C-alpha cells in the first residue's frame, strides 16, 4: 500500500510540476495495491500517466509471464491553470498471478510521439493460497466459497462415469436488462492432461460480458472420484428484454489414450511412452447452451432515467470553493455503486446561466471484488463563471432501477455553491473548448537555430566593448576636469568675496603694464597721453593698495592711509610718493607750467617707486 501511495504521491507531484511554466513533461507512475498476493487472489495495478495536453497516451503494458492482466477501467482528472491544461489519467488493471514466488512487473512505458517515460520495475510476492477455512471470513457475504460442493449437473456427469467434462451454470435464469448475471464455467478432470487445455469462450446473444478474474482451480469429490477443476467466471448484462442465450463454451484438451496396452505388443514401448503423457488425444468438451429470460423494466420510470440498473449513490463537488470570474472550475458528478457502470450515462446537467459549461469527460474505475461489478464513474464538467458573486449549482438528479427491489430510485446531489470573485484580464481570456479547438501545432522534434549572417557586432555591444577597451588613464580625464572646475569655482567665489585683496595683488602688474604703455606712447611722440596714462595708473595703484576709491584719494589722505596700513613704509618712500604725485598732477593738468622734467623721467621715477613700494607695502 505504501508503494501505491508513494507512487500516487509522485504522480501528483509530477502533475503539480506540470503547472510550472517549464517545458512539457510526460510522466508515468505505477503502483500496486499491495506487495504480496496469494496465488488464487488478485491485485490492482494502477498506472498514472500525466501530461500537459488534453489527452495523454495509454500505457503500453509489457508482456507479463507471471500474471494474467484484465483491464479494470480508467479515471481522469484535468486541471486548467491560466489556460494550461494538465491531464492525469489513471489506468487500472487487475493482475492474477500465475506462479508462486517473487514476481516482477516489468517497466511500463508511455510515448506521446515526442516524449517517452517509463516506470521502474516492481516486485510482488506471490504466496500459496491459504486454507479455505481461514479465507472464508475475509470474503464478502455474496461471494461464493472457493471450495464448494459440486453442482447437480456435475454430479450427473460424474455419475455417467465421465473422466473429463465441462459445465456452465448461471446464478439466475431471469434478469432485467443491465442486471448482473454471473456465469460459472467449470472444467473437471479426474485424469492428468497431457498439456494445458485451451478455452474458447462462449458466444452470447443479447448479452455483454465482463471477465471476473482470476481463474479458480481446486479439487472436489464427486461420487467418490477425485476431480481437479478449473473455474472461469464472467459477469453478464442483458441488453434488451426478451430471450438471451449463452451458447457453448469449449475446452480443447489433450487427454491420455484409453487404449489398453498389451505387454506383448511389438509397439509396447511406443504406446507406453504415449500414455505417460508424451502424447495424447485431442478432445473437445463443450457446455450446453443456456437460455435466459430477460424481463422488461417495469413502467413508471422517472423522467431522468437513462437505463442505469444496479445500486448506486451520487455525489457532486467542485474542485475548489472559490474562483475568479473567467477561471475554469472542474465540477464532478460521481456515481458509485454496483452495476454495469460502463453503460451509465451522464445525468442531465441543468441550465446554468451563470456559467459557461464545456464538454464533459468521464472516467471509470471498475472493481470486481466478490464477483460483483462495482466501482465509480465520474463525469467532469468544466464550468467557467461568467460574473462575480455567490453562484450555486443546483442539485443534479440521477435515476436508476434497482433489480433486487424491482423499483426505480431517484437520487439527487447536494447543491454546490461557488464564491466567484472578480476576474482579472488574464482570466477573461481563458477559453477552453477541446471539442471545437483547432488542431494543435505538434512539435515533432527540436534542434538548434541556424547560423546567423548578421554583419558583425551590433552597435551597442560594439560600443560597450570599445568603451571598455579605452586605456584606464582616460577615465581620469573627467575626474581631473571635475576637480579643476571645482577649484575654479571655489577660486571665483573667493575672488568675489575678497575684491580688495585681488585689487591689492593686481596693483603692481597693472601699474607695470601702464608704464610699458606710457613708454610706447612717449616713443610715439605723445608725451601728454603718456603722462595722463601714468597719472591714472599711479592713482589706481595707490587706490588698490589703500583699498579706497580713486575719487576719494588726495595726496595727504593717500600718505596717511599708506602709513596707517603699512607701518613698514618709510618716510622716504612717502616723500617720493608725494613728489611723483605732484609732478604727475602738474604735468597732467598744466603741461605748459611743468618744468623740464619729461614724461620719460616720470615713467622711470614711477617704475623705481613701484619697486620700493612693493617691498614696503606688504
Amino acid at each position, binding site marked *: 500500500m505504501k508503494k501505491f501511495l508513494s507512487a500516487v504521491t509522485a504522480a501528483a507531484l509530477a502533475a503539480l510540476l506540470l503547472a*510550472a*511554466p*517549464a517545458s512539457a513533461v510526460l510522466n508515468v507512475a505505477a503502483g500496486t495495491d499491495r506487495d504480496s498476493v496469494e496465488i488464487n487472489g488478485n491485485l490492482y495495478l494502477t498506472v498514472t500517466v500525466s501530461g500537459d495536453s488534453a489527452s495523454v497516451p495509454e500505457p503500453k503494458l509489457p508482456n507479463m509471464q507471471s500474471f494474467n492482466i484484465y483491464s479494470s477501467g480508467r479515471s481522469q482528472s484535468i486541471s486548467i491553470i491560466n489556460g494550461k491544461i494538465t491531464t492525469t489519467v489513471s489506468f487500472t488493471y487487475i493482475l492474477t498471478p500465475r506462479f508462486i514466488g517473487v514476481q516482477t512487473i516489468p517497466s511500463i512505458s508511455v510515448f506521446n510521439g515526442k516524449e517517452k517515460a517509463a516506470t521502474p520495475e516492481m516486485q510482488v510476492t506471490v504466496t500459496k493460497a491459504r486454507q479455505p477455512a481461514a479465507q472464508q471470513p475475509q470474503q464478502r457475504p455474496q461471494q461464493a466459497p472457493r471450495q464448494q460442493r459440486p453442482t447437480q449437473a456435475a454430479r450427473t456427469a460424474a455419475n455417467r462415469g465421465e473422466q473429463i467434462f465441462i459445465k456452465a451454470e448461471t446464478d439466475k435464469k431471469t434478469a432485467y436488462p443491465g442486471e448482473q448475471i454471473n456465469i460459472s464455467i467449470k472444467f473437471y478432470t479426474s485424469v492428468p492432461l497431457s498439456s494445458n487445455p485451451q478455452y474458447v469462450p462462449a458466444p452470447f446473444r443479447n448479452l455483454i460480458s465482463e471477465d471476473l478474474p482470476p481463474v479458480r482451480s481446486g479439487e472436489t469429490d464427486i461420487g467418490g472420484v477425485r476431480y481437479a477443476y478449473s473455474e472461469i467466471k464472467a459477469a453478464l448484462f442483458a441488453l434488451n428484454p426478451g430471450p438471451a442465450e449463452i451458447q457453448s463454451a469449449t475446452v480443447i484438451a489433450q487427454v491420455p489414450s484409453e487404449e489398453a496396452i498389451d505387454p506383448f505388443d511389438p509397439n509396447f514401448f511406443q504406446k507406453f511412452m504415449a500414455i505417460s503423457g508424451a502424447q495424447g488425444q485431442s478432445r473437445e468438451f463443450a457446455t450446453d447452451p443456456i437460455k435466459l429470460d430477460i424481463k422488461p423494466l417495469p413502467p413508471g420510470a422517472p423522467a431522468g432515467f437513462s437505463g442505469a440498473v444496479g445500486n448506486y449513490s451520487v455525489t457532486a463537488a467542485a474542485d475548489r470553493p472559490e474562483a475568479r470570474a473567467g477561471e475554469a472550475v472542474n465540477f464532478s458528478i460521481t456515481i458509485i455503486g454496483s452495476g454495469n457502470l460502463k453503460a451509465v450515462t451522464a445525468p442531465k446537467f441543468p441550465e446554468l446561466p451563470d456559467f459557461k459549461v464545456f464538454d464533459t469527460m468521464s472516467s471509470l474505475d471498475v472493481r470486481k471484488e466478490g464477483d460483483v461489478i462495482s466501482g465509480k464513474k465520474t463525469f467532469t464538467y468544466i464550468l467557467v463563471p461568467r460574473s462575480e458573486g455567490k453562484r450555486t449549482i443546483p442539485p443534479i438528479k440521477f435515476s436508476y432501477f434497482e433489480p433486487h427491489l424491482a423499483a426505480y430510485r431517484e437520487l439527487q446531489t447536494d447543491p454546490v455553491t461557488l464564491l466567484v470573485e472578480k476576474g482579472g484580464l488574464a482570466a477573461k481570456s481563458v477559453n477552453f473548448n477541446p471539442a471545437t479547438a483547432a488542431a494543435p501545432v505538434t512539435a515533432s522534434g*527540436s*534542434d*538548434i*537555430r*541556424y*547560423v*546567423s*549572417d*548578421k*554583419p*558583425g*557586432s*551590433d*552597435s*551597442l*555591444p*560594439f*560600443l*560597450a*566593448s*570599445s*568603451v*571598455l577597451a*579605452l586605456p584606464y588613464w582616460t*577615465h581620469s*580625464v*573627467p*575626474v581631473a*576636469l*571635475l576637480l*579643476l*572646475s*571645482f577649484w*575654479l*569655482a571655489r577660486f*571665483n*567665489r573667493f575672488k568675489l568675496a575678497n575684491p580688495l585683496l585681488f585689487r591689492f595683488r593686481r596693483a603692481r602688474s597693472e601699474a607695470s603694464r601702464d608704464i610699458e604703455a606710457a613708454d610706447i606712447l612717449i616713443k610715439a611722440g605723445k608725451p601728454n597721453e603718456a603722462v595722463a596714462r601714468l597719472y591714472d595708473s599711479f592713482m589706481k595703484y595707490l587706490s588698490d593698495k589703500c583699498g579706497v576709491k580713486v575719487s576719494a584719494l588726495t595726496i595727504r589722505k593717500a600718505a596717511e592711509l599708506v602709513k596707517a596700513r603699512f607701518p613698514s613704509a618709510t618716510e622716504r618712500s612717502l616723500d617720493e610718493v608725494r613728489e611723483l604725485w605732484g609732478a604727475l598732477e602738474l604735468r597732467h593738468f598744466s603741461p605748459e607750467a611743468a618744468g623740464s622734467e619729461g614724461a620719460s623721467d616720470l615713467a622711470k621715477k614711477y617704475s623705481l617707486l613701484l619697486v620700493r613700494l612693493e617691498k614696503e607695502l606688504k
Partner: protein
Amino acid sequence: MKKIFLSLLLALPSAAGAYDRGELAEFNDLYRNGQYEEALEGYKLIIAKEPSNQWAWYNAGNALFRLNRIGPAVFNYAKAFMLDPRSQDILVNLDFAMRQTGQSLAPEGAPAALFYLYYVVSETELEALAILLFWLACLAGAACFLLDGGRGGDYAGRVSLAAAGLLVSTVVWLGARQSSPYSSAGVVTRAGGTRMLSGPGEKFKTYASAPEGRLVKILDTGDEAYYEIGLPKEGIKGWALKTEIEKL
C-alpha cells in the same frame, strides 16, 4: 570634451558597420554544405580579429554542436550570450545546448520575465554604461562648477546628480550580476568531462567529476595549470586542469 565624447559615440557604430559581411557569409556557406570543421576554422578567424562579434561566437557554437562537441558549443553560445543577451537566437541555442547537458538557462522556478529582465543588458554593456555614466556625472559636475550660479549650472548639476544616481544603480546591478552563473564562470570543454581534484596537482585525490558542457564557477585562477572550480548546485568545489575548462 563633449564634442570628443559625441564624436566617439558616433564613430564607434560606424566602425562596427565596417565589418566584412562577405567573410561570415562565406563561412556560413561551408556550414550549409555540412563542412562544419572548415566553417568553424573560419568563425575562429573572425573571433580572433573581432572578439566582440557575438555572431561569430554563435555560429562557431552551431558548428561545434553539429560536430557533437557539446562542451565547446555551450562555451561559444555562452560567450555570444554574454555579448548580446537580448538575441533570441542565441538564447534558444544556448538553452538547447544546456538542456543537452542536463542544465537549464533560466534557474528552475524563476519567472522567465524576471530572467530576461535580469539579463537585458550584458555585463560588458553594464560596465560600459557605468563608465559612460561616470563620464557624464563628472562632466556635468564640471559644467555645474564652471557655470556656478547660473541656470545652466543648476541644470548641469541636476544632470550630474541623476547620472551619479544611475551610476550607483548600475554598479549595484553589476554587483548583483557577479552572482550570476555566467560571471567568473567557465565551461567544461573536455569530451567526457573533467576530474575535480582536491588540490592543484595529480597527487591529489579525485573526488568528483564535472560533465562536459557544465557551467562552473571559477574560484581561483592563481595556479599555472589548474583552476579552482565550484559547482554551486551540488555545493562542491575542486581543482581542474585549465586545459579542460574554458573561461568565459
